[in-house]
């Protein structure tokens, strides 16, 4: 329990710094950045204490829960609860470590911004919300923090709100997330109406006892996944994530690396016991398709941050794919490794953009500092950035001895074994491997275009400088965590390629499957337990290693030949398949598709209304007018005197009536009140009689 209280302190500390920062930030020395960053490092230290305790205990079933009553409305209690188990402990370390290093980096990146103190306030608020998502044991609490995460991401993405594009991106992120959250809310309503509780423990018991089952359970699982689709930017709600690059680069790192997008994956991890076979397949297909689809878009982009954004979408697809195909621990594991190398990639890009921006500013060139076509040859100028960037690229591509290799490999092996068991799902491993190859290609394309060759804007070359210590130190810090050894160290040894013996897999056990029988979906990490199941799954692991190495190697080689030795011409390829290229370059027209469907629909509807108005209503009006003309022609033929008499009589009557009613419409409230009172008298006297 002590550890749990410690975890709650970790959660509340950013809230405290947020309050301090938002109210007093501008009056503190250095605008209060040291408060926020210092608190985050204290958080990190506390998280490490918890983590150390967990490692020391080495108990896969470790779980501490604190329940308390929050509010009682109309006889219905709404308790809240916090939970601390191994998953939470790992997530705490990931979130606090990434946040701490990014906060530190932000000091350098945001230097001189007019809203400097507010930026740090938002950062702490974001950390507070994210830690809440991690810590709550209760769907209600998770939902609260989930929405707070959405809010703080809105604030951070639209931080430079004087730019229209930034505020639009913030709104887009918020609204897109709302679409997903709506699904999650419906899922919560289903769960609550069926089980009457929001507690995960209670839901688990309810699912086990069969109070919630069948289609309803599947629907609930898919609706929760919808929330995760929004937050984790899965297809088709991924559109906000690339636009979110309008925010400051550390924010992109924070949102894309460890925190906001990970919330969706984490949510699925939390509710994994609710998933039925149907919902897992849905998750797997959406995840796999997203992985592949986003990777193809990333191939052709030129904006450095946009490439990384699509790569994030793709990697999140991987995690969802892993969760959908039953590699529970692998998905979570990839979440952790991805957090570090993606944060590193973003911060490295931030460093590059910072340098480019200053260089271009120095020579008054208004070229885009984020376009990789304007870069090149930076490796000689920015050594630290280059080497750390290279490490992260190797990791994301899945080159051996990096963290990305072991985690991605575990996922691919999981999909292979899944497809081996269910051959009809052969597309899933295909998506996974194809995405791996494409990832290797475009990540190396990015590195080659940025760091190799010659700098494109020659007059600004002299002004490129390495960023300051406050920015490079976090880079190095993250780079350290891209090596495999941190993850595969087990009780006795360090494994080279397989995390199976590492602490992670010992600590993170998949939950017992309650929503489906073991025969339907073996939800275990059996690919690493070769003694027990020697035949197929273990073998698929070694296939996976070879296959993925092959594909990744091919991707890297093609990339080298295209962009360094120029033996393959990218332009030729683009010219050969122009439709394909344009589709990729324009993100498969998803935004346009939304414009064409949602907005067009409204246009079509209004056109329909206009047509109705023009043809039918006007036709009726005109027709009646014509009839009236004919009728009055006949009337005119009749006696003028009679008609005049009637008309005048009606006019006079109307005038008299109008004069009479006008006496009551004085516009004075007091006259109306008298009338009202008289009315009451009449009613009461009438009732009394």
């Amino acid at each position, binding site marked *: 329990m002590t550890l749990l209280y410690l975890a709650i302190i970790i959660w509340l500390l950013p809230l405290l710094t947020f309050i301090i920062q938002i109210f007093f930030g501008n009056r503190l020395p250095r605008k209060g950045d040291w408060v926020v960053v210092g608190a985050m490092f204290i958080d990190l230290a506390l998280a490490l204490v918890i983590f150390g305790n967990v490692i020391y205990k080495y108990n896969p079933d470790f779980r501490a829960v604190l329940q308390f009553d929050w509010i009682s*409305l109309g006889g219905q209690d709404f308790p809240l609860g916090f939970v601390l188990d191994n998953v939470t402990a790992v997530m705490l370390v990931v979130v606090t470590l990434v946040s701490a290093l990014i906060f530190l980096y932000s000091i350098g990146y945001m230097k001189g911004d007019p809203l400097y103190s507010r930026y740090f306030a938002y950062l702490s608020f974001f950390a507070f919300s994210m830690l809440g998502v991690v810590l709550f044991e209760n769907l209600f609490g998770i939902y609260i923090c989930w929405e707070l995460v959405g809010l703080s991401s809105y604030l951070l993405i639209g931080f430079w709100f004087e730019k229209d594009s930034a505020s639009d991106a913030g709104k887009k992120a918020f609204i897109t997330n709302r679409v997903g959250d709506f699904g999650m809310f419906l899922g919560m309503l289903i769960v609550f109406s069926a089980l009457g509780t929001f507690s995960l423990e209670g839901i688990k018991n309810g699912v086990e006892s069969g109070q919630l089952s069948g289609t309803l359970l599947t629907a609930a699982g898919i609706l929760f996944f919808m929330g995760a689709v929004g937050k984790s930017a899965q297809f088709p709600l991924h559109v906000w994530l690339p636009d979110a690059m309008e925010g400051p680069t550390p924010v992109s790192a924070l949102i894309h690396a460890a925190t906001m997008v990970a919330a969706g994956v984490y949510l699925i991890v939390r509710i994994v016991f609710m998933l039925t076979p149907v919902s897992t397949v849905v998750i797997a297909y959406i995840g796999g398709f997203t992985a592949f689809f986003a990777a193809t878009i990333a191939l052709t982009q030129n904006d450095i941050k946009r490439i990384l954004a699509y790569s994030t979408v793709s990697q999140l697809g991987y995690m969802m794919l892993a969760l959908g195909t039953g590699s529970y621990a692998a998905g979570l594991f990839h979440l952790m490794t991805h957090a570090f190398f993606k944060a590193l990639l973003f911060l490295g890009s931030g460093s590059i953009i910072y340098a480019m921006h200053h260089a271009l500013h120095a020579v008054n060139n208004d070229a885009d500092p984020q376009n990789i076509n304007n870069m090149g040859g930076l490796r000689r100028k920015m050594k630290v950035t280059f080497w750390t960037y290279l490490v992260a690229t190797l990791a994301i591509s899945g080159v051996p001895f990096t963290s990305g290799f072991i985690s991605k490999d575990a996922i691919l092996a999981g999909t292979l074994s899944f497809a081996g068991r269910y051959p009809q799902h052969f597309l899933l491993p295909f998506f996974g491997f194809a995405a791996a190859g494409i990832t290797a290609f475009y990540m190396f394309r990015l590195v080659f275009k940025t760091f190799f060759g010659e700098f494109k804007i020659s007059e600004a070359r002299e002004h490129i400088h390495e960023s300051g210590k406050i920015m490079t130190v976090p880079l190095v810090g993250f780079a350290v965590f891209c090596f495999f050894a941190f993850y595969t160290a087990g009780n006795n040894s360090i494994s080279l390629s397989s995390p199976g013996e590492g602490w992670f897999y010992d600590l993170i056990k998949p939950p017992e499957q309650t929503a489906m029988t073991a025969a339907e979906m073996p939800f275990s990490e059996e690919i690493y337990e070769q003694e027990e199941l020697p035949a197929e799954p273990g073998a698929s692991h070694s296939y996976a290693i070879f296959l993925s190495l092959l594909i990744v190697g091919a991707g890297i080689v093609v990339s080298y030949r295209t962009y360094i030795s120029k033996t393959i011409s990218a332009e030729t390829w683009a010219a050969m398949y122009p439709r394909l290229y344009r589709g990729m370059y324009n993100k498969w027209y998803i935004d346009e598709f939304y414009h064409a469907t949602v907005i067009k629909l409204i246009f079509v509807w209004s056109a329909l209304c206009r047509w109705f108005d023009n043809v039918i209503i006007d036709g009726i009006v005109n027709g009646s007018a014509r009839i009236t003309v004919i009728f009055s022609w006949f009337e005119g033929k009749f006696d003028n005197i009679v008609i005049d008499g009637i008309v005048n009589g009606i006019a006079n009557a109307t005038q008299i009536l109008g004069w009479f009613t006008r006496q009551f419409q004085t516009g*004075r409230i*007091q*006259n109306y009140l*008298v009338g009202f*009172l008289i009315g009451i*008298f009449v009613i*009461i006297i009438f009732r009394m009689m």
Partner: protein
Amino acid sequence: MSGFDIVFLFFAVITIGSAALVVFSKKITHAAFALMFSLFGVAGLYVFLSADFLAAVQIIIYIGGILVLLLFGVLLTVKISSITITTQSTQRIWGAIAGTGLFILVLTIIIRADWFIPEKDPGDIYFTQSRQIGERLMTEYLLPFEIASVLLLAALIGAMFMIRSEDK
């Protein structure tokens, strides 16, 4: 008629008499100050109904708050340099008829109705009233309490929004 009845009657007369002054006074400031005495009389009646806490709140909020607001309102909406700020009446005949009718109606209802009065011992509840009010507000009446606080906030913001100068 015991002594307490005399005091009660005194407060009742203050309340009603001042309220009548509010209605019939020609000068609006006189009406406002008469309102003060009327509100004070109501507070006195609360004391007789064993609601001390409410009496204190009545004085703080009505006299210290609303009445001062009204006075400021009077002083800000007319030419304040003269003390002859008058307030005219309209539709006096209708008003008199309606008012008399209303009073007779309500009086009839009060006299006709058979109010059930339980024979219970009041106990000590009125001597720990402020504690009781505090406890009730935090338990049974929590929701109305919160809604009231939101209402106050909304009124505050709304009033400020409406009154701010649009020149800026």
